[in-house]
């Protein structure tokens, strides 16, 4: 096991590993999602029909895409509170600039993407170069952007954009056997998720995580921190743009479209086990967090919970889910530290080989896992390193 050689896990080990993953913080969100979906299907069996289920995915797509964008910002160690306003702005832009003229759809789409990129660029540059906390930068952007868009449009959009454009969020490929219709939203979500997974594994994506984990190390390693950071903001603004395109198709233009999306996205990402503060988390889990959140809302709808109680249930579940992750995470981390006896390097001379060692040595040579060295109130440095991230 030395020298970085890996063991090939057997099938049984893999299954056990899968089970462990599901109850682990990393997999908890998938477990939660499955439970919620099953509960919905029990309450309303038609939900499980492919044609209904695909509609559910269509509906989640914008939130999931926003969560994917927010994932990159959070895992890079920052926040993006401006996503909701970007969604709103893009929705209103689409309504006002495209109007009923289908031929404008493509140019305006390009403009929207450009606009999204610029918003992210501005956020990122201010965070990187003016050293303003991203919480504040994106909060300011959230206010300013929404105000500017409302000012520009006199508070409301002219109207829904042309149906051709709205088809992206509303329509799909019809006549598919089992599912009847394959909404474009679903296709786009799959593409975005695939891109995100691919991107997160690319050198650049891994650099984002490393930067979120330890910005100093990243800087000393030659990372162009400002660009990496800025790009995460651009990704999130672009994902908000895509969500805006889907939403304007799905629902139409209104200045309240996108309201609260930043919090929904952050919640989804955290539900997905991504650590606020950066450096830890899996993009698929973040998307799953969005699905879990939407499934929760749907479940509450189907269960007939009065709409006023929904927030309360949502709040409780978020706290419990995150507390579960946070506490099991700590427990596991402790456990892991225990089960990780570091094999001394073969090159190292055995300690006892030193000529003048005290005779008292050798009293305790077994590799038995030691308790992690610390009294309760003082964690050893090993644990301390991520405690600051995982904790409050």
């Amino acid at each position, binding site marked *: 096991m030395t020298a970085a*050689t890996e063991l090939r896990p057997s099938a049984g080990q893999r299954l056990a590993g899968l089970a462990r993953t599901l109850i682990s913080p990393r997999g908890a969100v998938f477990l939660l999602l499955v439970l919620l979906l099953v509960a919905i299907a029990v309450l309303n069996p038609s939900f499980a029909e492919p044609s209904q289920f695909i509609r559910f995915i269509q509906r989640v797509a914008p939130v999931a895409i926003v969560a994917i964008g927010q994932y990159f910002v959070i895992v890079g160690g920052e926040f993006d509170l401006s996503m909701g306003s970007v969604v709103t702005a893009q929705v209103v832009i689409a309504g006002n600039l495209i109007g009923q003229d289908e031929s404008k759809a493509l140019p305006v789409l390009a403009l929207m993407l450009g606009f999204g990129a610029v918003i992210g660029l501005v956020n990122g540059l201010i965070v990187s170069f003016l050293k303003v906390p991203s919480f504040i930068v994106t909060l300011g952007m959230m206010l300013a952007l929404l105000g500017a868009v409302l000012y520009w449009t006199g508070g409301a959009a002219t109207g829904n954009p042309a149906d051709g454009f709205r088809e992206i969020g509303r329509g799909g490929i019809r006549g598919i056997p089992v599912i009847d219709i394959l909404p474009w939203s679903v296709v786009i979500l799959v593409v975005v998720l695939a891109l995100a997974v691919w991107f997160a594994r690319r050198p650049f994506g891994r650099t984002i995580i490393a930067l979120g984990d330890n910005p100093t190390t990243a800087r000393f390693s030659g990372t162009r921190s400002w660009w990496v950071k800025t790009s995460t903001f651009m990704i999130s603004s672009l994902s908000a743009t895509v969500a805006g395109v889907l939403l304007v198709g799905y629902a139409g233009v209104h200045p309240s479209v996108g309201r609260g999306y930043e919090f929904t996205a952050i919640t989804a990402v955290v539900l997905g086990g991504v650590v606020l503060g950066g450096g830890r988390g899996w993009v698929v889990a973040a998307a799953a967090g969005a699905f879990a959140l939407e499934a929760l809302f749907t479940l509450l709808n189907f269960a007939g919970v009065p709409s006023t109680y929904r927030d309360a249930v949502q709040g409780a579940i978020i706290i419990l889910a995150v507390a579960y992750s946070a506490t099991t995470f700590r427990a596991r981390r402790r456990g892991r530290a225990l089960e*990780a006896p570091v094999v001394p390097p073969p090159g190292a001379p055995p300690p006892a080989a030193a000529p003048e060692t005290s005779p008292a040595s050798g009293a*305790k040579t077994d590799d038995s896992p030691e308790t992690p060295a610390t009294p309760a109130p003082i964690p050893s440095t090993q644990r301390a390193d991520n405690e600051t991230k995982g904790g409050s």
Partner: protein
Amino acid sequence: MSEPILVAEGLEKSFFGVQVLRGVGLTLHPGEVHGLIGENGAGKSTFMKILAGVYQRDGGTVRIAGAEVDFQHPVQAAEAGLATVFQEFNLLPERTVAENVFVGREPRRFGLVDRRRMVRQTEQLLAELGIDFIDADAPVRRLSVAEQQIVEIVKALSVDARVIQMDEPTAALADHEVELLYAIVARLKARGVAILYVSHRLKEIFDLCDTITVLKDGALVSTGPAAELDTDELVRRMVGRPIETYFPEAEPGTELGEPRLVLRGAGNGYVDGIELELRAGEIVGVAGLQGSGRTELAEAVFGIAPFTRGTMELDGRAIRVTGARQAVREGLALVTEDRKAQGLALNQSVLDNALLVIRSVFSRRTAAVRRELPGVLSSLEVASRGVEQEVQYLSGGNQQKVVLAKWLATEPRVVLMDEPTRGIDVGAKVAVYRLMRRLTREGVAILMISSELPEVIGMSDRIIVMHDGRASAELPARSDEATILAAATGTLAAIELGGGAA
């Protein structure tokens, strides 16, 4: 002799299955200064932390004034009269000196924190130490490292301890400040306080200590009156083996090549007038006291805080490096002194850390490097449970090897190593030394900053000594410790003094 105030017997400690203390014990008497010495990683700090209640011992007993104690927390220890100046700083930079001194046990009057008393007592403590240049009301972030060290000492003194442990208290102090500490120790001693004193500076040990205990690899080597020892004997007990086997010789085929890195009159806000020629296949050691600007020299070369004066040439080309990214592209590598803060992303895997530089600077080479990586890691003898293991679970030495792997992957031509063996065990050290020799044979130029003089002496082809931001001397290979120290303290004239002091 009086009754012992502290008796520790047979202390044992393991971290994750690696035993770092094997039945170590010692006895402290009131008014005694007890030196605890040993190599890096010998277990000195661990021993102190067990006494202080930071770590729980696995075995052994500790008695204070005859009563057996088992501290769960340093505050308990402090209440029992045992205070500790830890090796790492434990200060809150945003708080004032007085607030730091009294954090956790602020004095109160009518239920409110008595700020004035806090400041007054701090000033008093400072005055007792004869220090007038630290403002008790100034935020600690404004203090220099030395001043911060003094605050740490004051913090320990403020509990009115009967036993004070000091873990390398002079590491960050300049000469006259060391004198100051001497005075402090003398005063404490006169008060009947027992002091357990750790230092790597043997001269200090002989100047101050009544008794000396030597640790090696977590085990007790000897304990006895200082008067019975001299420097040579002490070193022999500490190191326990001839230094020749410790530092590998240059590998056959290593050739001194063209100058790779040349600095002429280079300087910035932190270093000044640096003259340096680093040739292919050469290891140049940089010695100096802490705070002498060695790290800043490396950082300047690497573009973290670029030079603003003078010239820098790389392979004969004049260049200005203004950022780490550019430095990496130019073939430079910087193994930073603070592994955890600057060298690693602790939550990431071995693989991710090893690929960090490649991914962010030469991303197109990632796939190729990734294929070679297992080979590199095994050649460095990295012990891990696989490349997917998070580096935070690795031992310090293995972490350091991951840092080295990260840089080797970039195939650098000039490697700047800042304390490359800090906090890693003997075996890992030898591995690092071997690696350095291998690199030089391949024509790499190495600038090695180290606080461990034997290492500097054992590995360097030439030695630069820094003092107060300037290169105060350039010494040939195998220069003796005394000369280096003299240059480091800016008192080259005192060369003769060093070795024979005791």
